[in-house]
């Protein structure tokens, strides 16, 4: 699906956000990306969803070099990538149905998009997506009247309507109750598995990553520190990843006893060997 060759992104001020990252992600694969804040994870995701242009290296999507694509073609490729953000990025004043149907904007012509704002078309599609995320009754509610967790589900519903080949989730649960975080992560994981979509999730919480994903990519200072399955990840590796970031190191304390508190929650998906 994705092939990254020595991908780099240097911002105008000289900040090196991503430094020579090489990765391959296959179709229908699921992986979690972890690392301290400021490590370049979000920039990496914006490179992956084609909203940022890399300053060096190549990014191939299904074998196509994205640097060669013109504006129109690029837009169509973006339509194949669905992104979920930490702050859901919905328009509060619009009703949920419009925010969900916005997933079609990559496909709809402008007049059709305009008319849908006045009278929503394909409400069945929106209802179905909302049902899949568990809140079908909120179809016509105003989006800013929903709770944070519900709004994040609306964002997931929007991605379902978009029906991309890849789902990128950039810290989707950092602003959500911890109890809800597990629900949303499993929701994403199950949806991606059912429809055989590639899933890449950027997670702040190491526990969640280790518990629910078969592949963990550790990123530090713009580079890939390690790329392993959870059972091969040692406490040392994690300490090395988060060295110097006090707040985040604290979440590694439970691991110092040599056990993974979420060990029991680790349910391998069918098809992924342990």
């Amino acid at each position: 699906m994705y092939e990254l060759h020595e991908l780099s992104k240097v911002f105008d001020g000289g900040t090196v956000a991503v430094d020579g990252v090489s990765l391959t992600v296959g179709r229908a694969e699921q992986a979690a990306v972890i690392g301290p804040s400021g490590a370049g994870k979000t920039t990496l995701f914006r490179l992956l969803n084609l909203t940022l242009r890399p300053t060096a290296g190549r990014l191939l999507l299904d074998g196509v070099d994205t640097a060669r694509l013109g504006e129109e073609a690029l837009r169509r490729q973006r339509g194949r990538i669905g992104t979920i953000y930490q702050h859901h990025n919905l328009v509060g004043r619009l009703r949920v149905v419009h925010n969900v149907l916005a997933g079609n904007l990559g496909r709809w012509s402008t007049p059709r998009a305009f008319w849908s704002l006045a009278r929503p078309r394909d409400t069945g599609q929106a209802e179905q997506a909302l049902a899949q995320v568990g809140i079908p009754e909120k179809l016509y509610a105003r989006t800013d009247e929903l709770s944070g967790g519900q709004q994040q589900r609306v964002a997931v519903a929007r991605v379902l309507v978009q029906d991309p080949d890849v789902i990128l989730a950039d810290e989707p649960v950092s602003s959500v109750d911890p109890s809800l975080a597990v629900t949303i992560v499993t929701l994403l994981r199950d949806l991606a598995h059912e429809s055989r979509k590639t899933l890449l999730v950027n997670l702040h919480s190491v526990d969640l990553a280790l518990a629910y994903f078969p592949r963990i990519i550790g990123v530090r200072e713009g580079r890939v520190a390690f790329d392993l399955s959870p059972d091969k990840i040692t406490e040392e590796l994690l300490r090395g990843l988060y060295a110097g970031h006090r707040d985040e190191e604290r979440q590694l304390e439970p691991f110092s006893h040599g056990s993974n508190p979420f060990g029991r929650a680790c349910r391998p998906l069918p098809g992924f060997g342990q």
Partner: protein
Amino acid sequence: MTAGPAKTAPRPRAGAGTWAALAGLAALVVWSYQGVDVRLGELLGPEGLGQIAAYVARLFPPDLSAPALRSAAEGAVETFAISFVGSVLAVVIALPLAVLTTRTLLYRGILYEGQALSGRGRLARVAIYAAARALLNVLRTIPEVLWALIFVFMVGLGPFPGVLALAVHTGGVLGKLFGEVLEEVEPRPVEALMSTGASRLRILLYGVLPQAAPQFIAYALYRWEVNIRAAAVMGFVGAGGLGQRIHIAISLFLENQLLTLILTIYLMVTLVDWLSGHLRRRLV
């Protein structure tokens, strides 16, 4: 999540009220259009544009001779002074009026729960409140230019009536704005001060005004920006400043001087806008 079967909420219809309002606005616009003889087609046609271009050509070049520049500078300084003093006086007028029109400071709310006023006392205060509100409305509804005319009538020509007009009108506007700020003040610090046994006046000084002050300053500085434009204009009715000189230039068809004066106004307004924005960022 809701218990029981999940039902989709019914599709909301845009209220009849909204459609009526839109229709009303549309009718208003159409009615106004045919009433005002808007000859936009004529204006933007070759003849109209030609006339405008000819007029603009007459304005250039601006008159930069020494007497013209001196007159413009004097006018600018006078206008600045008028707007400055007018704004300061406006705040002086607005503060007491704002307090008198805030019901939660006058006779309602937590300040008066512990020690209720006597029946007659309360009635008196309500009367004061009503009178203050009426006064505020009069002050701010009558436009500054009209006030300027009234004051010219009273004290004669010159910059002083301009100052009074700005003070009085802006005092009304600020009084209403300040009042809104006072109404929305946080009640908890006020409650805390009440429990220390402070008198109402002290609570006002220590609890209410400090909270409101930044917003007051912001509004006052914003109105200063408006007033510099208004001050420039009141000269039309004889209240000094750049407006008076513009009036003269127009009446005597001195278009080059007019351009000089317009450029001066532009510079003045830009300067005051910048000062006001800068002070607002620093102080608020």
